[in-house]
């Protein structure tokens, strides 16, 4: 369980985290979503006692992190996979971290096996690919077999196989009753990985909701209809219980009736239909919608390029 209460962090004139409150519960994978610069990493740094908050509190299992003795038994974290000494082997990296919390060599061997790194344990981490470094970071987080796990952008740089593996790992960790808190700027990834979403923008909470509810509420489904007798058709549609919203360009956005029913209705009444298009707003669009006011750096042209990544590439 992670509890963040009215947390704020200012760096000079910049407010990175602004009165943020949320709780991350055990037994779930909780996604921590937000555009780059939204304050996700800063929030995680504060939870781990690495940065001091300007105000507010962050508690892990009911305690301030700094007060925990041998904290790796309580919280495992991966902030930056590249944050390893390139000249040290995977084995010695893990051993040094393990020893600081009284964790033995057997556990080091176990986490190496668990992350599939046992074959490269004696190789220096500097020669690792980003994917291998991510695994090393996850191995480090698992050393103390902790009930709370926190990962900052863990899928960055992983190949499809690695992403599948990590997704399964998170789910099984949560199924064991652990608190799993994973940040990402990719909605598509979190929709597949997380049961619960905490979405922030410019350091403020935007949404704190189960993933399926977010998907449901934000996936707009309607049918675009164009007709030379739009007004007449709209009347017929509303009479049948559909909701009709006229669009700026003369089209009708119809909900509550599917495309074939609309087409049949128009045909029965001899009304010509020029366009009949079922539309789905993607999760990605919904996410962009709610975070659009809080994107720190925006490209000049807000086009499809602004969508972080296609699901095909990252899912």
């Amino acid at each position, binding site marked *: 369980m992670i509890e963040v209460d009215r947390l704020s962090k200012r760096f000079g004139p910049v407010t990175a985290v602004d009165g943020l409150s949320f709780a991350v519960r055990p037994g779930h994978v909780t996604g921590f979503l937000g555009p780059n610069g939204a304050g996700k990493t800063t929030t995680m*740094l504060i939870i781990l*006692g690495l940065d001091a908050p300007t105000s507010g509190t962050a508690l892990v299992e009911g305690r301030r992190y700094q007060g925990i003795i041998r904290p790796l038994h309580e919280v495992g974290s991966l902030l930056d996979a590249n944050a*390893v000494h390139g000249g*040290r082997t995977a084995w010695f990296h893990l051993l040094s*971290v393990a020893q*600081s*919390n009284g964790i033995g060599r057997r556990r080091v061997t176990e986490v190496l096996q668990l992350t599939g790194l046992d074959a490269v344990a004696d190789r220096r981490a500097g020669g690792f690919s980003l994917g291998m470094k991510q695994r090393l970071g996850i191995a480090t987080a698992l050393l103390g077999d902790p009930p709370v796990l926190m990962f900052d952008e863990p899928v960055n740089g992983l190949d499809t196989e690695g992403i599948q593996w990590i997704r399964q790992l998170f789910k099984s960790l949560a199924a064991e009753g652990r608190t799993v808190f994973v940040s990402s700027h990719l909605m598509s990834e979190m929709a597949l990985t997380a049961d619960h979403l905490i979405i922030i923008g410019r350091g403020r909470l935007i949404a704190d909701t189960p993933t399926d509810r977010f998907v449901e509420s934000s996936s707009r489904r309607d049918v675009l209809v164009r007709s030379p007798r739009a007004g007449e058709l709209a009347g017929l549609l509303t009479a049948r219980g559909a909701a009709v919203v006229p669009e700026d360009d003369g089209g009708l956005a119809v909900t509550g009736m599917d495309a074939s029913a609309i087409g049949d209705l128009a045909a029965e009444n001899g009304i010509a239909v020029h366009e009949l298009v079922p539309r789905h707003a993607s999760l990605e669009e919904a996410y962009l919608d709610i975070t659009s006011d809080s994107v720190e750096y925006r490209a000049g042209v807000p086009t499809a390029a602004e969508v972080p990544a296609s699901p095909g590439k990252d899912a």
Partner: protein
Amino acid sequence: MTALESRPAHTAVPSLAIRASDVLTSEWTKLRSVRSTYWTLLIVGVTPIGISAIVALTLATQPAAGRSQIDPLLPSFIGLEYAVLAIGVLGVLAFSSEHATGMIRTTFAAVPRRRAVLAAKAAVAGTVALIVGELISFASFFLVQAILSGHHRGLSVSHPGVPGAVLAEGILLFVCAMVGVGLGAMIRHAAGAVAALVGLIYLPAILGLLPAPWNDRIGRFTLFYAAQQVVALHPRTDLFSPALSMLVLIAWPAAALLTAAFLITWRDA
């Protein structure tokens, strides 16, 4: 992976001694698992022996006239001139290498009591520096005296004042390693910390430009002058006494480590 229910309870708080030994073991593993440690120690070990042998040979072959003023312990001391810098760099790297890679966040997340990390890094680097320092100063002493005694000018290790002076030379490496650890923790960047270290060690060269007696009045507070007083068989009378100079030698690393202890606790990692 064990299920949560079967996890051993971690409610029993380990004693302070066990926690201290955990952090010490961890820092020792870090030090011995990177190659930079061995390269640095190679420089620390080889340069003083080589330099002091050369200085001793030069002294030994000097014409008899004017020989008597030269302190027979001087060649070993001169030999340490590069070793002190190298061992200081070893100290600097303890923190700067972790800041450069970002590993420091993993370290501080594993041990939130940052002063314990500072203390452990200082203890580990200090112990290595002290052991290596004593080995070198005794090795260099015997080598230098062997060369000098070939010209009937050598000293025995049992000569009054000699054991203390030779031991003090080893301590000098310890002092520089500690100053390095403190500077590395304070400045975080290796380049900046090493620059500061060079400045501190070679400060007397700049102070030497001051008009007398100010050069010595300020100079006696420097590491170099204090070390020279401590290791000399015949200390200069116009500087601090060897005992006071020893205090100066201890004050520098103490100040560096205390400043570091204050800074690392309050700064964001």
